[in-house]
């Protein structure tokens, strides 16, 4: 098996001169992608296909699911990996299509801010949700 830098160099023109950071971003997309194949297809199968699909999803369903440690961890890993993988993917798309410095920097800053805010919201909800504290819940 070839080294990461070697494989990367095979796919990109030398004049693009990837920085070390860009190589690791490329490698991260493959590692996180591989994990996401299992986490996300599992999530889609459980929530959308088997056991009645989205029709059975309501407050009680989520409360029972997040009662244990396992699904909270699963969902948080999915949240973190999907946001990092998706955010980095969107960054690459921005770098490809917006060559003007000003607009590109503006869009990337916006993307980072939005990704960070959604990561914070998602993490907060998964960590702090307590069905017994809800009006009419638990």
């Amino acid at each position: 098996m070839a080294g990461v830098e070697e494989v990367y160099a095979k796919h990109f023109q030398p004049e693009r001169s990837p920085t070390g950071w860009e190589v690791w971003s490329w490698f991260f997309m493959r590692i996180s992608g591989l994990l996401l194949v299992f986490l996300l297809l599992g999530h889609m199968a459980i929530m959308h296909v088997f056991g009645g699909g989205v029709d059975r999803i309501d407050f009680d369903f989520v409360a029972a699911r997040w009662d244990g440690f396992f699904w909270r961890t699963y969902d948080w890993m999915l949240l973190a990996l999907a946001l990092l993988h998706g955010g980095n993917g969107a960054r690459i798309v921005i770098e490809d299509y917006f060559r003007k410095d000003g607009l590109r920097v503006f869009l990337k800053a916006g993307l980072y801010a939005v990704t960070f805010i959604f990561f914070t919201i998602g993490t907060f909800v998964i960590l702090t949700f307590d069905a017994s504290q809800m009006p009419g819940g638990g």
Partner: protein
Amino acid sequence: MWSWLLHRGSGLAVLGFLFLHILDTSLITFGPKIYNKMAKLYESPVFRPLEVALMFFVIYHSFNGLRIMVVDFWSKGAQYQVLLGKAVMGITLLLFVPAAFFMLRPLFI
């Protein structure tokens, strides 16, 4: 070329839904009444086709991503490009068609 475009498009579409999905799940902190109202919305005939589209994008993006990894890390990967491309389409349809059937069935029964 088209697989590269579909990979980008499906990736951006799934990311877009991820943002929406984080917001809708956050409604759980406002209690059962508000969360259940939102959950009902996803069962409507308007959202079903979007759910089916999301499923297609996720399955395609997953297996096309695996194909990219095979081409990147397996020395003979590029040699089997055409076959791998067909395999991605085959597996995607094989998983997507039954999944779409299960997701759309509640609309007809």
